[in-house]
């Protein structure tokens, strides 16, 4: 079935480098995307969202890029810090289902090396 997925299950970066986490989605009807960060023993924490009428949105040290042509979403983290180590999930909202519940990808683990 259609789902949101991630290309890389584990990403290891050096402290201070930039990180890029990718996500593919298959439903062109999806109109809203969210990135969550999940640390061990905690629930997913909202990082940033983007609507389908945008192709880029920036937050503090994070940028989300949306390419609707190839149905691709990415999360860029600038100057990655040890505290950024976590599992990152992308999630989508599918307008065609009429539901407001999110469909989550499988997650990417980000490991920041000191």
């Amino acid at each position, binding site marked *: 079935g259609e789902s949101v997925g991630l290309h890389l299950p584990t990403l290891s970066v050096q402290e201070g480098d930039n990180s890029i986490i990718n996500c593919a989605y298959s439903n062109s009807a999806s*109109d*809203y995307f*969210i990135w*969550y960060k999940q640390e061990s*023993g*905690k*629930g*997913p*924490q*909202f990082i940033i*969202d983007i*609507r389908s009428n945008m192709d880029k949105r920036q937050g503090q040290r994070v940028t989300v890029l949306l390419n609707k042509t190839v149905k691709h979403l990415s999360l860029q983290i600038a100057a990655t810090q040890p505290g950024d180590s976590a599992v990152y*999930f992308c999630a989508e*909202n599918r307008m065609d289902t009429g*539901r*407001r*519940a*999110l*469909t*989550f*990808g*499988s*997650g990417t683990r980000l490991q920041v090396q000191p």
Partner: protein
Amino acid sequence: DARVTQTPRHKVTEMGQEVTMRCQPILGHNTVFWYRQTMMQGLELLAYFRNRAPLDDSGMPKDRFSAEMPDATLATLKIQPSEPRDSAVYFCASGLEGLNQPQHFGDGTRLSIL
């Protein structure tokens, strides 16, 4: 910051026992979601409420699971009887109804059925 509160944080019990998990959504949020997270399946939606009314519980095993919202400040998820395969982390999330609104998650209940 306002937070979704879940209790208990951990629960260990024997199969066949009834399990009740509780969630206090963020004040003012009118949508509540229950998700289950396992290593194999990732984050899966179990049930979804809007203004305390259940809108979607298609992801929930009906024979043993039940979800309710006795009032706007409390959501419950019950399993009766519990089985070892129910072992997982159960998350509650809340949000505001409307297009493109992020959900905010609690820190989950880690359930182990022996």
